[in-house]
């Protein structure tokens, strides 16, 4: 399914951007919902604390942060491509953008885990 014509950094970056964006778009409402729900009522704070301590939720939250970082990196790459009038180093930029975001993602992962 991955055609040979797709095998270049720009394409992989776009795919990463899209998948992370998609995941974010699906996760974000859940994230909002959970935040909103958990804080309802009197024992809001305690409930919240207990809840976020659960490993599964923790993982999901970390995932969300990860995705956000990745998506940010790839998104900045797109914005740079489209709005900075750099013409010639474009190809380099495409690769750099991709590389940078992956790196940023990894760094973040290492720092938080």
């Amino acid at each position: 399914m991955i055609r040979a014509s797709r095998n270049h950094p720009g394409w992989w970056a776009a795919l990463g951007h899209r998948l992370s964006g998609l995941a974010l778009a699906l996760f974000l409402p859940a994230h909002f919902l959970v935040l909103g729900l958990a804080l309802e009522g009197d024992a809001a704070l305690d409930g919240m604390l207990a809840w976020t301590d659960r490993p599964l939720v923790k993982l999901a939250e970390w995932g969300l942060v990860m995705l956000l970082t990745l998506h940010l990196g790839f998104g900045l790459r797109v914005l740079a491509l489209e709005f900075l009038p750099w013409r010639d180093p474009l190809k380099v930029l495409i690769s750099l953008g991709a590389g940078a975001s992956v790196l940023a993602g990894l760094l973040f992962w290492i720092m938080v885990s």
Partner: protein
Amino acid sequence: MQDTAETEEMLEVEIWRGAEDGALRTYRVPRRESQTVLDVVTWVQRNAEPALAYRFACRVGMCGSCAMQVNGKPRWTCRTHVAKVAEGGKLRIEPLANLPKIKDLATDMAPFFEKWAEARGRHEPTRTRHEPMAPVSPENPARAAANAGIECINCAVCYAACDVVGWDGSYLGPAALNRAWTLANDERDADRCGVLRAVSQSGGCHTCHSHGSCVEHCPVGINPTAGIAGLKRMTLAALMRGEL
């Protein structure tokens, strides 16, 4: 010298036969020292499969008729040396992607050219043949930008490489938008705003996701990604000015 037939080093070549419902068929083609992918296809037509359909004209990379998928990548076949692409003596040659197949390696390029026209891909004159020519400084940045995209041979390689073309049938594609970009930068054009309007329709420049497969594959080194980005900026500016 040109004939290595004695040792008969062979290529294993899979070629698409038929239209949409076709299939790959394998041929064994003698390897030559000077041999392009078009030569391989020609050999098969002349020696193995007389009814094989393919398209070419200039054989030197000027007419943009001969593009095909070679081992999965769109390429101009008349200027693709076999040595550069044959992986382990194997070639897979298919009709250009994202276009309707007519027969074997020949596609119907009509949608590609229709979109070119849809992007208002033609000059609207400000002067007639009876007037002197407009002086245009080659250093003028707009002229330089147009110049960088003007030598497109309309081979549709970028069109075949772009995933968005495959995903969204209305997307004009890199070549048509690149042509629009050259027009939008041409001070001699009478209706540059018309170009911006044409490329702001559904399927226009905003549909591009800057994948960069077009610039990656363009055989003549044109950068549609940059041109399309330019169109995006220009159309936004026009939108803000209320000119769209």
